[in-house]
């Protein structure tokens, strides 16, 4: 292989990206060396098993990936603004919509949600960490290096270009040469293993580590949604694992599972992909429902309306999510019996979702609403998500879907559910829990600017796409002719996308501004919260709770405040706290995964084997490790509690 094939060449945009990447790396190395922070980085972050720090790292990655995926989106909008644009060529456009989709779902939405659940769930259930802290670190680093492997594809070797769904036969060797789709198969596999382990970890955490008194039906709604999400992860991700493994065999070792020739079944890939893919969209939407439930109930200052119905509808949605997958390919030709069955199950999902919408509305009813930024995102979610949901029911009608399929109508639909659902929830959750993560509040004024810019921009960008779809504009076309009459609506959509971009810049400025000048949260409970995470200091001491709280009812902390004036800790009740030790192994094992993955992508098998050997070495070392963690003595706890509560 020549160097000119190894590095992507010939595009000025790529050269600019090369320069930017090199400068950023030099900058990071310089800053870490200049401020002597290498040791700090290793001890405090790279080896940490603290769920709160791991959560923060997830969210930092998610915001970076939101930037990357957002730039992809803006490039696509720029290309589509006017007919016959020459800004991107067809191949480059294919690569950009592929990476946009994959990154936004798997490396932005997923880590954002997983980051929030890492930070919040142990706090909400009154635990000191997750059930398997070491595994949690491994999950994060596998996600991190999977994302890194996927992202370097655009400067080294070439990006995947067969769509985020990577349908065969297009994604197979017959039609996609080069290493782009190898990156897709291997990088998703690595981060997928991490996600699967997160699912198991949090399922056990929630089932086994709840504070005394917290029965299942006293769990906060966010924790409930995470519990069900974990079940979805555990049952859905193995399907992706297998499908990706078969894809890897096809692409790298020449097997014929999904090929056109030799008895391969290319359409089976679509089938397997969506058996995972449909639960996957619920994996990112159910936690969002949980976030909205927490925010709405806190800022309407009322107990959540219809708690039991909420729980029931989450379980119902999760159950239905496994029996609807064919609605992603009604037009493939499975026939009326199959299509009708899956059409009905799909429409049935609207029922539990509708129940939830009404429960939020009734929670707001007669509440003393505080219009904070987090609450604005939650309120905006309801009408916007309903637009996405109703058009989803339209798409669910198999016969009508032959008209809508793969048109911009579909594009508009899933952006209305994924942005108004998941992205709004991530922003709501970020504003809501930010003081818990960093000890200061995100500036509300700037937050509201972000909200209005992004929310209005979102509607300007995606609402016209429904009509573009009905006018015949299909998905993934890189240009169009002037006489089709699509130009005005495309111009409008691009303006909306630009507004969303500006909203994101304001958010980034807000993070910087609030770190410097933001209001410090000395109370630990800036929003008059209802659940146990607000009983800790902001940010919480690394053991979270000096003594394990006792739960008496739903909204545990609210009840504590009403009955006892807060979370009361008597110094004589303190006992030594058992905590897990840090470990560098999750980090270097994930580096080994990265090396092995890189070797597989380029079919450099010697390198892949070296990486694999280090993975096995890590597993062996862990098996013989005899580290039961350490105890924090009572005097140390007293000292740390006083330091954390100073000024409270």
């Amino acid at each position: 292989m020549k160097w000119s094939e190894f590095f992507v060449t010939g595009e000025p945009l790529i050269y600019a990206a090369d320069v930017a990447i090199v400068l950023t790396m030099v900058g990071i190395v310089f800053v870490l060396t200049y401020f002597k922070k290498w040791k700090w980085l290793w001890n405090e972050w790279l080896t940490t098993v603290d769920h709160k720090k791991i959560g923060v790292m997830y969210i930092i990655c998610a915001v970076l990936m939101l930037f990357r995926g957002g730039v992809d989106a803006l490039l696509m909008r720029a290309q589509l603004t006017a007919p016959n644009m020459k800004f991107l060529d067809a191949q480059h456009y294919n690569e950009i919509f592929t990476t946009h989709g994959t990154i936004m779902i798997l490396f932005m939405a997923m880590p954002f949600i997983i980051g929030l659940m890492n930070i919040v769930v142990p706090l909400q259930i009154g635990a000191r960490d997750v059930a398997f802290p070491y595994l949690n670190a491994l999950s994060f680093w596998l996600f991190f290096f999977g994302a890194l492997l996927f992202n370097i594809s655009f400067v080294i070797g070439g990006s995947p270009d067969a769509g985020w769904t990577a349908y065969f036969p297009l994604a197979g060797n017959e039609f996609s040469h080069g290493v782009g789709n190898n990156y897709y198969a291997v990088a998703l596999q690595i981060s997928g293993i991490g996600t699967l382990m997160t699912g198991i970890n949090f399922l056990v955490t929630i089932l086994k580590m709840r504070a005394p008194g917290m029965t299942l039906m006293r769990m906060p709604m966010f924790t409930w949604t995470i519990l069900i999400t974990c079940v979805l992860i555990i049952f859905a991700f193995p399907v992706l694992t297998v499908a990706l493994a078969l894809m890897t065999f096809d692409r790298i070792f020449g097997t014929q599972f999904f090929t056109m020739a030799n008895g391969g079944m290319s359409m089976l890939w679509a089938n397997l992909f969506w058996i995972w893919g449909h639960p996957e969209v619920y994996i990112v939407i159910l936690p969002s429902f949980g976030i909205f439930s927490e925010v709405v109930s806190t800022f309407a200052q009322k107990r959540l309306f219809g708690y039991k119905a909420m729980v029931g509808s989450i379980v119902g949605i999760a159950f239905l999510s496994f029996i609807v997958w064919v609605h992603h390919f009604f037009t493939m030709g499975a026939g009326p019996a199959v299509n009708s069955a899956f059409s009905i199950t799909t429409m049935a999902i609207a029922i539990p979702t509708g129940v939830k919408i009404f429960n939020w509305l009734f929670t707001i009813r007669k509440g003393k609403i505080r219009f904070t930024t987090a609450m604005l995102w939650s309120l905006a979610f309801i009408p916007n998500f309903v637009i996405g949901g109703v058009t989803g029911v339209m798409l669910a009608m198999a016969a009508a879907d032959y008209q809508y399929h793969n048109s911009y109508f579909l594009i508009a639909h899933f952006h209305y559910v994924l942005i108004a659902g998941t992205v709004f929830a991530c922003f709501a959750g970020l504003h809501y829990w930010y003081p818990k993560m960093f000890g200061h509040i995100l500036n509300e004024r700037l937050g509201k600017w972000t909200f209005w810019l992004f929310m209005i921009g979102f509607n300007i960008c995606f609402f016209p796409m429904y009509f573009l779809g009905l006018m015949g504009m299909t998905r993934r076309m890189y240009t169009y002719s002037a006489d089709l009459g699509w130009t005005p609506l495309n111009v409008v959509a691009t303006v909306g996308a630009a507004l969303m971009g500006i909203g994101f810049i304001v958010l980034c400025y807000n993070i910087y501004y609030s770190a410097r000048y933001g209001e410090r949260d000395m109370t630990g409970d800036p929003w008059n919260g209802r659940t146990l995470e607000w009983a800790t200091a902001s940010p919480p001491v690394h053991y979270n709770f000096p003594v394990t709280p006792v739960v008496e009812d739903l909204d545990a902390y609210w009840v504590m405040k009403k009955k006892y004036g807060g979370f009361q800790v008597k110094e004589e009740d303190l006992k030594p706290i058992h905590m897990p030790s840090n470990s560098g192994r999750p980090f270097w094992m994930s580096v080994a995964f990265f090396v092995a993955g890189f070797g597989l992508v380029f079919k450099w098998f010697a390198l892949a084997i070296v990486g694999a050997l280090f993975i096995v070495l890590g597993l062996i070392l862990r098996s013989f490790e005899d580290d039961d963690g350490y105890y924090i003595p009572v005097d140390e706890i007293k000292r740390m509690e006083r330091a954390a509560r100073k000024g409270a």
Partner: protein
Amino acid sequence: MGANDHHESFPWKHIIGFLLSLVLTFAALWAALSSGLPLKTVIVIIVVFAVIQASLQLFMFMHVTESDSGRIQTFNMAYSFFIAVVVVAGSIWVMQFVL
């Protein structure tokens, strides 16, 4: 905790489970590659071996009988079974038109 906590002198259960798993895996491989049986028979054999191995692992490695949360275990396995049926039977039904 409880039953899983004590250490046996030698993990016989695991060794036997591991060896039986290896035997079942290689038997399936042999059936597929060099037994010369008709395709349908081979598929049936592989599926039977897979089910035996899955249950073997549940007892030998996963301590399914030792847990104190029996209801959760039963529910988990019932749901896993349901999902497996949905995935396998569902896929066969959906892909019938190209088979």
